[in-house]
């Protein structure tokens, strides 16, 4: 069936792509593996002429480091919480958007806005919104100079200001802020994809359902969701991949300390862990951590794909 001429042509068409990938993606991957297996490899030391021996030291050091587990936990937690929430919200917004006429285009544009701007700058804005400026939280001397807009709103409705991100704040409060920010960040792309999918659904299905007198909820669960399932699968899979690489959002809120002032590093993630290793010039450990992260993402993605194969209707 396959002509050899065809084969040759296919490779020709692919060649620009493959050559570039070889040089700028595959080679860095090989180099990463190399650095991961050289004991305590450091680029600067290498430039200074030091020679490194082969071994698994980087992996054992990374895994035995006491903060490794906490980084892993934060990454997994954020992923598991934010992906379903953002997917659900995006679906809800997309369905709502699809069922209105007035303002539809304006709102669409607004929901896409976060996509076209600088995430670090917006992170700073979020931090300011949740920040509390003051001191001595929880002591008899407690002074709050100003609470960010979020706490103002809470107090307006009669609640108590919550210490979200400052020292003395709880892990749960920190995570809440991160979830809100990450979901906010993830929404535009998901809304875009899902809305695109909704608008692509052939109206004949709905017409048929209408004739049958199917209820709105049934239409949603029996027609909309199944027909949208490839999009949903796509959004969830890329969401998980992105979620495991979470880093800049945390820097945006908590700064390089990756946690409240009294517990720096509390919210550090796997990519943050890699960056820390790079910053202290331990490329060996950074590479080892990256390979571990890659293995995790690979397994999760394979599971995701397996699940979606069973659930997705094409």
């Amino acid at each position, binding site marked *: 069936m396959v002509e050899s001429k065809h084969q040759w042509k296919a490779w020709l068409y692919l060649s620009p792509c493959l050559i570039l990938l070889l040089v700028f993606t595959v080679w860095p991957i090989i180099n990463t593996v*190399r650095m991961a297996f050289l004991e305590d490899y450091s680029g600067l030391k290498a430039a200074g002429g030091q020679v490194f021996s082969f071994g698994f030291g980087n992996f054992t050091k990374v895994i035995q480091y006491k903060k490794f587990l906490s980084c892993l936990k934060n990454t997994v937690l954020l992923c598991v919480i934010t992906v379903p929430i953002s997917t659900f919200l995006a679906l809800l917004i997309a369905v709502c958007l699809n069922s209105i006429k007035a303002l539809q285009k304006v709102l669409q544009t607004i929901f896409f806005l976060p996509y076209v701007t600088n995430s670090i700058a917006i992170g700073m804005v979020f931090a300011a919104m949740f920040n509390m400026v003051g001191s001595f939280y929880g002591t008899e001397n407690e002074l709050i*100079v100003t609470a960010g807009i979020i706490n103002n709103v809470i107090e307006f409705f009669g609640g108590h200001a919550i210490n979200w991100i400052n020292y003395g704040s709880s892990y749960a409060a920190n995570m809440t802020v991160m979830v809100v920010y990450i979901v906010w960040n993830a929404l535009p792309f998901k809304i875009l994809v899902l809305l695109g999918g909704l608008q692509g659904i052939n109206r004949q299905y709905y017409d048929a359902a209408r004739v049958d007198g199917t209820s709105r909820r049934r239409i949603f669960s029996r027609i909309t969701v199944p027909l949208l399932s490839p999009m949903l699968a796509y959004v969830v899979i890329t969401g998980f991949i992105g979620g495991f690489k979470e880093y800049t959002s945390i820097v945006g809120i908590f700064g390089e300390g990756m946690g409240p002032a009294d517990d720096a590093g509390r919210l550090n993630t796997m990519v943050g862990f890699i960056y820390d290793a790079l910053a202290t010039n331990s490329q060996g450990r950074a590479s080892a951590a990256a390979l571990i992260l890659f293995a995790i993402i690979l397994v999760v993605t394979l599971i995701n794909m397996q699940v979606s194969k069973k659930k997705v209707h094409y």
Partner: protein
Amino acid sequence: MKRKLLSILMAVCMLTTAVLCSSCGNPAKSAEPNFDVPEGGYDGSEVTLKFYHTMGSNLSDVLNIYIEEFNKLYPNIHIVAEQVGSYDDVRDQIKTEITVGSQPNIAYCYPDHVALYNLAGAVATLDNLIDSQITVTRADGTTEILGLTEEQKSDFIEGYYEEGRQFGDGLMYTMPFSKSTEVLYYNKTFFDEHNLTVPTTWDEMEALCAKIKEIDPSSIPLGYDSEGNWFITMCEQYGSDYTSATGDHYLFDNETNRNFVKTFREWFQKGYLTTQTLYGAYTSGLFTAETGIRSYMSIGSSAGATHQRPAAKEDGSYPFEVGIATIPQVNPSNPKVISQGPSVCIFQKDNPQEVIASWLFVKFLTTSVEFQAEFSMASGYVPVLKSVAENETYASFLAKADGGAYVSALSAKVCLEQEKAYYTSPAFNGSSTARDQVGALLAKCLTTDAAGDVDKMIKKAFEDAIEECEYYN
């Protein structure tokens, strides 16, 4: 299929090259100076030098004037000055460039950065250059010796100059460029009104805070911007161990240090003080606030004096007068204040002429009284030369010092008065980690709920910080 094979081959080739390359770099550093001045010194050849800095446009303008001046003397040395971003940006950029040998010739640096570059042996030692007696002829016919004259050497403020030697091997790696320190800003109007005296010791500080709390119970009397600086300065003032450039690096877990941390925790619990990370913003904001919760003292960088001044009223006057003093001491007869601000280092290059030319330029900037004076006035930093104080323009700038419009002159004046008190801490690979860790440690110990046993909590926090430092080393 062929292509596939070819690509695998390619990958293997590249891998081999890289493996080989990891063993063909520069020789590691030793206790001997790593740069020898070639005979004849600067031979007048054309060189182009890259200079990485963090100067904003107003300072670049000053620099450019002096590059022109320099080129009148050495027309063949071309300086390409590049603003790379913040100090960290400069470090990150150079760190990456060193791995492929494309580092600049000259760069703004902090000691921690140099310790990092030294892992690759990339920074040229200056000892042989400073001592060189070779005569260099300039384009205008005049001559200078390549090294520093005794006069030039003794004109540097000693603490600043010695910063270049804090790398544990006794060699000189950097030249001071412009400096700042931490000073105590206080609300002079408030102090005068209530007959308060400026504290010179930490004991006086404690009494003063108590007094201010009585006068204004809703205030936070003292704000300290940098926890890291605070911890290190206290070690220095007590003479207790912090870090060492050689041997065991991390020595800060000792009784003296745990004790002062415990004391400050008590102050904090009484509502006497806050810090930048704990407060959630620059403490200068608290200091310059005119209503609500405010502080009456703020310890921060002397280069940030204008931020410690309240906003001017419509008639141009200020709501209160700012006073500036030396930070409190453990022992006022042996004061210690931190030395901050950029130095410059020179990088090794295959062509020794580039290194010599870099040195000539660095020497020109750091020993030029006019440059130092103008740069200091434009930046708020203090000059590194003693004789700048006698420079006419600079002297008249200092003479204007007051707690309002000329607050940066006041800050510069206070800095210059304490030039003997400057200290620097050892720099080594991992010294910046130690700095970050002690800062976080202090913030943690001030605030964490001790569950009844403060000593135990502090001890644990110190042990954790040491462990963390050691993981990264």
